[in-house]
């Protein structure tokens, strides 16, 4: 009797816990999460930007089907690569075939921002130096006496 009660309790606990456990692990990702990380191959833009294109709509349905099947983000990306090739992956580094290119994608904008910041700082410093109200540098010693002598000579 005790054994039967214990087994019933265990079964009940399993029945109650199973959907909760499933709810925690599935779905593992969302369409919105993936849309910025994969391309619409026909449109040549990230899927999130390709709103009305028929191929983009079909790709979304395909991804949603995989999400509903409880596939992880990486599994969905692998499935997309199998269908559309490596170029469906939008993030640098995802394709794994062009290390220098992946590095440059991050380095070039950083370098451009650094150069632009430096350029702006340089321009601001020069502009401040050229302002009419800016303090002038003091005249070299001896110039004042020479000016006074000249003034006296011309009786001004």
């Amino acid at each position: 009797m005790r054994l039967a009660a214990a087994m019933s309790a265990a079964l009940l606990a399993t029945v109650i816990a199973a959907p909760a456990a499933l709810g925690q692990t599935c779905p593992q990702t969302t369409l919105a999460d993936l849309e910025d990380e994969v391309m619409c191959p026909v449109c040549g833009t990230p899927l999130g930007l390709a709103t009305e294109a028929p191929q983009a709509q079909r790709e979304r349905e395909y991804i949603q089907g995989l999400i509903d099947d409880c596939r992880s983000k990486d599994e969905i990306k692998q499935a997309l690569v199998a269908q559309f090739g490596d170029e469906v992956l939008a993030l640098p580094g995802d394709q794994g075939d062009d290390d220098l290119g992946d590095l440059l994608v991050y380095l070039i904008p950083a370098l451009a921002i650094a150069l632009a910041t430096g350029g702006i700082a340089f321009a601001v410093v020069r502009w401040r130096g050229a302002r009419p109200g800016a303090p002038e540098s003091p005249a070299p010693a001896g110039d004042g006496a020479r000016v006074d002598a000249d003034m006296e000579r011309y009786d001004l």
Partner: protein
Amino acid sequence: MRRVLAPVPIAVLCAVGALVALLAYGLAQNEPDRGVEEALARGERERAPVLELPRLGGGGSGSLADYRGEVVVLNFWASWCKPCREESPLLERWHRRMTKQGGMVLGVDVLDVTADAQDFIDEYGLSYPMLKDKDGKALESFGVVAYPETFVIDREGRIAAVRRGPVDEPFLNAEVAPLLEGA
């Protein structure tokens, strides 16, 4: 003159020049290749680019060269492309007709989900061979920019005609039928 040759204006001019060059390069790269049409307008037939792709649904690969000596109607399509639906029954009819005269239709499914393509083939009862261009590499060599596009390849493997858009009966009668009769 001294101010123009100063480092900052020179650097700005170089940067602007580089941006303009980059823009021009981007525009040139996006310009579709229309060499086939230009050759046809001159009365010449260009050799068809090499095309070797996996067969749709597996089973190894297939090549345009496999069909040398036959008239091939090479059709680029996708299941999500609405105009492709309009022309598919016509292509199937012509494939059946052509096989009796040394010709065939060869389909290339482009940037498509394989299961969708198979559903499409089943829906229209398409019996002609199909290749899969999953990443669109073949599109570049043929200068395909829209769907569907069809190239008529003569028995020597040269492009005899092209249709950017769905084919129709008059096009096939005018461009394919004479090649079949020339067997």
